[in-house]
Every structure is written in structure tokens, then in C-alpha cells.
């Protein structure tokens, strides 16, 4: 299992010609593929690109779209952009925290949900704005939060 992941990472790296200047693109692909950046894979990237491990870590933690922790099956992103903030975004985030029993940045113990506070998602007209695995939810008020979470269960990923 781990071996296949490492091989996959090698493939990605090769695809970018093992070019240091494209390390960010490599991390992005890994993030897209595994939904987070596992430690072993970061080590591999450092080794293959001839970069100090610290440098790769710094990159993995500097950008907010990267996560070094696994994300849940349903990644709930609550917009904390300015428009959403003034339209009650923080209260909506707290409502999600209460509903799921976790804090922003955490995942539920069963790995089903993770909750993130993000910067502007570009849908300010629909503030407060929430996405669940990229699926948009517009004008989410605190009283709608439990319904929004409930929509996830109808959209369970097909068993593979």
C-alpha cells in the first residue's frame, strides 16, 4: 500500500521532470490525490528533488490549501472571507462546530467529516457561503446548518 503511494509520487515527480522549481505543483498533485500531504510522501519529495526536508515542510504548512492531516470523506469548508464574516460567517462556523462536535481544523473521529474555515471562496453574493466537497451551499444561516450536514448522508460516496 505505502509502496504504491511512493511509486505514485515518483510518477508525479517524474512527470514534472524532477524540477525543483515545480515542487509546488508536485505538492498540489499529491494533495489532490490523497486529500492531504502524508509525511512519508513529503520526505520522498524532498529526497527526489534534492531539497532539504525542512523546506518541503515549510511549503506544506505555509499554504492554507495544503493539509498535513487527513481530511474526512466530507470536507466542509465554511467561508471566513470578509463578506461572509460581516454576514454572520463566524456564527455559522460555530453552528457547524456544535453540530459535528469538532473544532474548525479537525475531523470527526470516524473520519466522515472535516471542518475548515477558509478564505473567500469567491461567492460573496451568496454569503454566508459553505462548500461540502466543492458542492456549494448558499446563504447558510445557523438554523440551516443541521439540514446542510444532513445532505451529506444522501450523497455518500459509492462503496468501492
Amino acid at each position, binding site marked *: 500500500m505505502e509502496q504504491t503511494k511512493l511509486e505514485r509520487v515518483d510518477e508525479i515527480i517524474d512527470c514534472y521532470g524532477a524540477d525543483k*522549481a515545480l515542487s509546488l505543483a508536485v505538492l498540489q498533485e499529491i494533495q489532490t490525490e490523497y486529500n492531504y500531504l502524508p509525511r512519508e510522501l513529503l520526505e520522498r519529495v524532498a529526497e527526489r528533488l534534492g531539497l532539504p526536508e525542512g523546506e518541503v515542510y515549510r511549503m506544506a504548512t505555509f499554504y*492554507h490549501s495544503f493539509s498535513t492531516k487527513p481530511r474526512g470523506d466530507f470536507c466542509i469548508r465554511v467561508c471566513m472571507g*470578509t463578506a461572509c464574516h460581516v454576514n454572520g460567517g463566524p456564527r455559522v462556523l460555530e453552528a457547524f462546530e456544535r453540530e459535528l462536535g469538532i473544532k474548525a481544523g479537525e475531523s470527526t473521529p470516524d473520519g466522515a467529516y472535516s471542518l475548515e474555515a477558509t478564505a473567500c471562496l469567491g461567492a460573496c*453574493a451568496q*454569503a454566508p457561503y459553505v462548500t461540502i466537497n466543492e458542492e*456549494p451551499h448558499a446563504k447558510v444561516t*445557523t438554523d*440551516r446548518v443541521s439540514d446542510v450536514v444532513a445532505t451529506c448522508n444522501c450523497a455518500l460516496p459509492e462503496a468501492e
Partner: protein
Amino acid sequence: MNTSKTQKHRADLLVSCVHDRAPDLIPALEAEVKRRGLEGEVKVVEAGCRGFCSMGPVLLIQPDGTFYVNVQPADVPEMVEETLVKGRVVERMTYQEPSSHACALYEDISFYSKQHRIVLRNCGMLNPASVEEYIAVGGYEAVGKALFDMTPEGVIEEVKKAGLRGRGGAGFAAARKWETGRKAEGDIKYVLANGDEGDPNCFMDRALMEADPHSILEGMIIGAYAMDAHQGYIYIPYEHTLSVKTMRNAIESARAYGLIGEDILGSGFDFEVEVRVGAHSFVGGESTALMHAIEGTVSEPRPKHIHTTEVGLWGKPTCLNNVKTWNLVPEIIGKGAEWFASIGTEKSTGTQVFSLAGKINNVGLAEVPMGTTIRELIFDVGGGIPNGREFKAIQIGGPSGGAVPASLLDMPMDYETLEEAGSMMGTGGVVVLDDRSCVIDVARYFLDFLKDQSCGKCSSCREGIRYMLEMLTNITEGKGKMSDLEVLERMGKSVKISSMCGLGKSVPNPVLSTLRHFRDEYVAHIEDHKCPAGVCKALIEHYINDQCNGCGLCLRKCPQDAITGEKKELHTIDAEKCIQCGVCFDVCRFDAVGVR
């Protein structure tokens, strides 16, 4: 804009905002057009953003100019039958001006009629995936003019006469930058487009790249010619998938027309350009940080003792401009410097694109001449404040900017005037605050955002943000002291002076500007333990007024079981149990929940 592309058809249906919000709309329109046998006469175009975000998806029918808002797939059969077959307007789908009546025609809608769209000239007007449509509206003519009729110096001179200032925030004169770049020693030079857009409330650069990618490319080609650069990069965060895709597609289709690559249009001038995908961060939009990202290291700023126009990307002379700055170049070359300079004010020429958000009716992108007053932007173009509430302030320029209060509504917006008022044009992000928005909460919000965005190199920036954030948090929690205000002011000033990059230099703006214009609100928080806007949780209280008819909805929804009351009788909130979560406020249909 009646272009040659529309001539072949009786009507063009230009559909905007479909990407995220209505992926089914285009197929529905196409199917209905086909079913009614109108394929030869009517063309459905997936156009880019038209900037009217609060009304999307929107549909413009050209050439007659009928404009529909909030268009849903279910509306399609009726719309096709009535408008395309019978030539009648579907009243219920038209836009309703907040002040008056329904508006069926695009040009009558005050959101558009009061704008002056230069940057956004093609946005929503054509198919961004088609270079032919861009060419049909006169696109790439300016490249021809520059390459064949003008010297590089002539191009720079024209841009200088136009008074073009960079649209990325600082308003630096574009021609000055290009001139230094041109004169800099070096066999290799670069031109870069900044598509980072890290301001947490702006979406115009993204909208532009997605709606009119060729205008940016065209500007870059002209700029490269002026600077004698042969390689360009467009930097876009990978989160903006559609921008990346649209720009890449545009490069390839321009190449197919000989507009990118070797010997452009047979002029002997070579230019290559590539999209470089970064990751989102606010400081990543700063020039040296952006260059670091293109080089493949973490996007942190470096000191700029030597200008990047001389020593930039990979140590070579580099000219970086915002995507909007590039987009304006073809218009200036095409229509002339005088035309451009005649718009706006003497020192701030041309127009500015504002993204309007927050407590405003017309959320979206609006472009107006520089020097337009705040009142005109917010009330004429923006349609005023929703729910009849009172205008309190605009926060302009994002986290680097500041709040401008209602007393300055008639102030013209240009680079200098805004700065004098303690704010900043920045990228043109405008967040409208009404009497239910707390300015201290907003200032605190920006600091909270920025604490994770500071790269941490300068202790003044890193520690200054933390310290000011702590103080503001205390104030919003009712734990502030009057002496804090003086400390905040001093500290803000010193962080400004001692930080290296533009982030640190502007970090204190939201705090300083609110201290200047809204001192009484600070005092209310500190001395009276009140948040006049009813926002800061530690200082407010939810209560139920006599509008309550005892429907029981809030009682069932309250997560704390803090609400009691018999059915059909006035309910009450137990202040001890209440956590001020606001669910009762949101759920009540009778305006019976208040905040004090």
C-alpha cells in the same frame, strides 16, 4: 456591442455565472433551442462573469438587449417561447430596481448604466474560450499597431502619457517600471502577470481571467515588446482552477494564430508565455514573494533594496503587473493615451474596478471612473443597503486598507484621497458595513486573517499583529482599558515604519482608521461594555420581544434549551443558558428576536 459574430444569428444568448451556480443552464437552453428548431437562428454562448453576482445566473439577449436575472433551467421553456419565438419580455424574469420599477433592458439597469466598463469591456460579452470572438471585437489589433507602427519607446511613452498606474494595489506608474526594465542590462528579461488576488474579498482578477483572458495576453505581448522581454509568466493560485484552465487555453489558441511564439505576426518579435500555478496566500501576491514562488521556493518577500525591474526573477530584470494593468494596455494603445487620460482624475486616470460585498444590494463587480464618490458607487451603482438599514462605513482596500465612515460619503475615490482618509485603494475590494456591523470586530477580523499570512520574517509585523490582535480581542470581549487605545495607536505607527514589505507596512491600517473614525465605538466597548452594532458576543444579549406569537420554532432549534414558553404565548430566553449563537434570530419569521 453588436459584433460580427452576432450577425450570422438572429439572437445571441449570452449566459453568465453558470460555472459554479448553474451548470445545467446551458444544456437546458441548448436543448430547448434545438427542440424549437431555432438552432440556426439562436446561438447559446457561455460567457464569463458579468459582475452582477447578486442576480446570477444572468442572461443577456443580443442584439436587442433584453436582460434576465436569476435564470433557472426551469425558466427556459417559457423564456424561449415568449421571448425568442413571440418577441415578448417575460416580466417576472427581469430585474427589479430596488428604488422603482422592473427593467427589461440591459442598458437601463442602473447597476450597469452608471458604470464605465473598460477593464471589464468584454466580460460577459463574449465566449472566453474563443480567440475568434476576441478578434472580432477588435482584439489583438493593438498588438499589430504596437509591433508595426510603434517603437518600444513609443509604446512606453504612450502608456506614460495615459498616466496608467498599476492596478495591483500600490498604484505605481506602469511606464516608469517598464522604462527601468527596458534600460536594465541583461540578455534575458521577464514580464509577469500577477493573478494571485490574495485579498480575502476580491474576485475581479479571477473574473477577468475567466471572462477575458486574451486582453491580458495582449497587454503582456505589448509590454514585453516595450521592455524587450521574450518570456512571460502568469501566476495564478491553483485553487482558481477555472482561471488556470481559461488562461492556458487562451495561450494555446493565441499561439495557433501566430500571436504567441516566434516571429509574432511576422514582425520578428518573439514572445513565449506560460501559466505558473502557485498556491493561495495573501503575502504571495507581493512582488518578490511571487517571484520566489515561480522559482519554486516558499513565497516570502525579500528586501527590495534593488528593484525587481533590475534584479527580479532568477536574478533577471523583471516587470510585474497586475492582470488588470495588462488588460488596460491594449485599450490605451488602441484608443490612445489622451482618451484614457480624459477619464478619471488628473493623478488617477482611467477607471477602477471595485468588488462590492457585504451589506449592499448589488453584490458584484463594478467599474467606475477614478474619482467617483463613495455615495455614487454605493447608492447609484450598488443599489444601496439591503433591508432599509443604515450605511455605516466602507472598508476599502482589503486587509491593507481602512474604514471610511458615512461622513465621507461624498469623498471622491482615488489613490491619494483614500490614503489621506487613512484607507487605501488597494485592489478595490469594498466591504459595505451597515449599522449592524461592528467596525472593531472587522478590524479584529483582518488582524486574525493577517496573523497567519505574515511570513514572520520581521518581528515588528509578526509580533505587532499578535499584540494588536490580543488587544482588540480583549476590547471585543469587554476586557479592554482606555489606555489600550493609545498603545494601539503607537504600536500601529511603529509596525508601519519598521516592517519590510507592504503587508507589514499596511497591517495596522484597519485598526488605525477605525480608531480615527470610530473612536466612540471603542469607548462604548471599553467603558459601557456595549457593542452598539450588536455583534460582539460577550457584550450582547438576545431577547424576545412582543412580536412573538409563540410558534415555538426557536424553542425547538435552540442548542442550549435556553428558550421557554407555552405554545401561542410569549417566549423568553434564559440569559444564563444563552450562548448568543444567533439561531433563534435566524430562525424567527416574525422579527421577534432582538439583540441588545
